């Protein structure tokens, strides 16, 4: 069978198949598979330069046709009810379904041409209606809420507020900034040194109250070492430091050095 010179554009493999069946004027229920397959393959060859995605769909159909062609050469299969199965049945069903779709498409196209000549308008709500505010239904709004419930809620808020405050610390009262008098501290440490002669640095620190006092004490001790009023010794890293008073040196601590 000759191939038409101009290739029609087919919507898909079923479209082409249907075209071939119609062209051959054969009953859709009795497709001459060999003829149709040959023609189908000839079309695909002629279409070779087309999009691969589209081509693959046509090739699947060609493969299906060849599959049917093969199965028709074999002895007929028998189904559960003992009836002979025609390998073409599935294809026939598919084609019939597709043919219906095409029929409906034509129907829809006609309808589209005849319709759509009505004009609609957009919402046209009078401003009086649009601005209408429904009165609040207070019964529904308040629901089960009553005075007692409101009271409970208020009390639970108060309780929550109390919980937020730490009662122990809040009872300490105000914490004021401590002023450390360096000269007082120096006098104290000098007296301590004279009294104890030889003592542990740690025991001196333990007698200090705040962090600021610790720092000042450390600075005073450093200054005393610098002017040779005391000497220190430490057996190993991080062990206690022993401070010894050097009695013979009576130089006073220069407070300006510590400043």
């Amino acid at each position, binding site marked *: 069978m000759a191939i038409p010179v101009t290739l029609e554009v087919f919507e*898909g493999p*079923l479209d082409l198949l249907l075209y071939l069946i119609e062209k051959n*004027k054969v009953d859709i229920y009795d497709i001459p*598979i060999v003829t149709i397959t040959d023609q189908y393959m000839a079309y695909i060859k002629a279409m070779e330069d087309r999009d691969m995605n589209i081509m693959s769909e046509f090739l699947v159909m060609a493969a299906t046709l060849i599959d049917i062609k093969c199965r028709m*050469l074999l002895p007929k299969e028998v189904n559960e009810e003992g009836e002979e199965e025609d390998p073409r049945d599935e294809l026939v069903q598919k084609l019939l379904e597709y043919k219906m779709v095409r029929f409906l498409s034509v129907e*829809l196209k006609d309808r589209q041409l005849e319709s759509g000549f009505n*004009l609609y*308008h957009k919402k046209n709500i009078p401003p009086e209606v649009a601005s209408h505010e429904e009165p609040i239904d207070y019964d529904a709004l308040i629901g089960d809420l009553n005075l007692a419930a409101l009271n409970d809620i208020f009390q639970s808020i108060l309780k929550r507020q109390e919980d937020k405050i730490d009662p122990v610390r809040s009872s300490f009262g105000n914490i004021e900034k401590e002023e450390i008098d360096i000269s007082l501290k120096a006098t104290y440490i000098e007296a301590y040194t004279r009294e104890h002669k030889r003592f542990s640095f740690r025991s001196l620190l333990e007698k200090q109250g705040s962090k600021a006092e610790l720092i000042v004490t450390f600075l005073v001790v450093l200054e005393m070492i610098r002017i040779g009023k005391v000497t220190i010794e430490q057996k190993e890293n991080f062990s206690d430091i022993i401070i010894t008073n050097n009695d013979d040196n009576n130089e006073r601590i220069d407070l300006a050095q510590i400043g």
Partner: protein
Amino acid sequence: MNKKKATATLEAILFAMGDSVDISRLASVIEEDVETTRKYLEEMTEKYNKGNGGIMLAWYDNAVQLCTKPEFYDDLIKIATAPKRYSLTDSVIETLSIVAYKQPVTRAEIERIRGVNCDHAINRLLELDLICELGRLDAPGKPILFGTTEQFLKSFGVRSVDELPHPDTLVVEEFKQQAEEEVQLSLDI
């Protein structure tokens, strides 16, 4: 509400709303049951069609909408903007007819019937608001189900999806006749 007042109310509401309104919603406003409301609307439709006015009632499944009568289209577009008319390609129309007759239908089913990938056509139809997603099929992968829209009914002048000619009766009948007339070529293997 008496019939006269109900009819006027229906007209007032439909005019103001512009869009289509569900018959059940209209029924609740005029405080009648859906059947009575439907009857009133049918009578209004007839009155509009027979009357000398320029407007009519369009029906979509379970909703109605006021619109101008088609015979005034040519005069109207002299002054009003004409509604867009789309020309749909064959592949888009084919896909649309599958959705129209098989709805709710999945993409896979559409593609099985057409034998080709339908992504483009489906997207185009969604874009034109001719089809919409109806939900998801309770099956592996939860595929989306498509159906036609009110815009579809409007564009194709169909009052309801049920009004479309049913393929099983009409078309199969035609095919059978064709088959009888067609020459049988015995091209057996």
